[in-house]
């Protein structure tokens, strides 16, 4: 059997829907997510290990005295607005990093749903919720100056 033809179409398109004809648009949501991810990542990288080491291990083992081991010191530290601000950054910023990573991890493990709009709302919305909770906790637990 001989199949033959004139002028085969130079197959246009590729695997992206719409092929060569579609008009690309900057995805600002992803741009913002990535920016927050990067900020959170660097903050997590620089700040978290020392907290874990001191507050999670050395303090509980009584190797050193640590601010949160005693009610007095902990409360007086928490009353300081600079400390509050610091803790807000320490806790809130990394959550945008975590949200991003976990969402991508889900996609990597084969769950396409991780890409969907609901997933974006859940994950980054989750980070916003953690931020709000942190603010609330910081403002209500030990009011400034007490």
């Amino acid at each position: 059997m001989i199949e033959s033809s004139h002028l085969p179409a130079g197959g246009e398109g590729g695997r992206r829907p719409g092929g060569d004809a579609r008009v690309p648009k900057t995805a600002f949501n992803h741009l913002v997510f990535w920016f927050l991810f990067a900020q959170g990542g660097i903050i997590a990288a620089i700040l978290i290990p020392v907290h874990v080491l001191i507050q999670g291990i050395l303090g509980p083992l009584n190797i050193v005295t640590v601010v949160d081991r005693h009610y007095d010191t902990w409360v007086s530290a928490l009353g300081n607005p600079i400390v509050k601000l610091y803790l807000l950054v320490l806790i809130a910023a990394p959550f945008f990093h975590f949200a991003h990573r976990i969402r991508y991890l889900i996609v990597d493990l084969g769950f396409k749903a991780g890409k969907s709009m609901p997933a974006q709302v859940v994950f980054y919305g989750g980070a916003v919720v953690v931020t709000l909770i942190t603010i609330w906790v910081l403002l209500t637990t030990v009011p400034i100056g007490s």
Partner: protein
Amino acid sequence: MSTSEANATPREYPWRMPANWWTRSRHYFWYIVREFTAVPLALWLLWLLVEIKRAGDGPARYSPHGSAPFVIFSVVVLLFSLYHSFTFLSLAGSILHFKLLDRPVSASVIVMSQFAAWAVASGVIGFFLVWLGR
């Protein structure tokens, strides 16, 4: 004689990503571990939030968390957080690009300075955590 329909590539064997792809190479495995660090780190920060909340319990009922399981958990988190710091700082360092006096700053210098910043920050924070706890 037809043109485009005949050109539709038939019978290609499609690529399917196996679900366990990340177990097939060391690099992929460590990449997944890197992404996974987010989970323990997030848990630990949530604990810290709880620790802050506890300050509202009043002097009598205040009891900071210090159980053995918690310490073990922290040790594990520390390993993950160190892995996160090492990978993030070296990767972030290698992509930053600055110019100083019109010469591009080499990636290794940037990475070094990132690690230096980490060391300094850890020192300062560590100092305050301990000093404020006197």
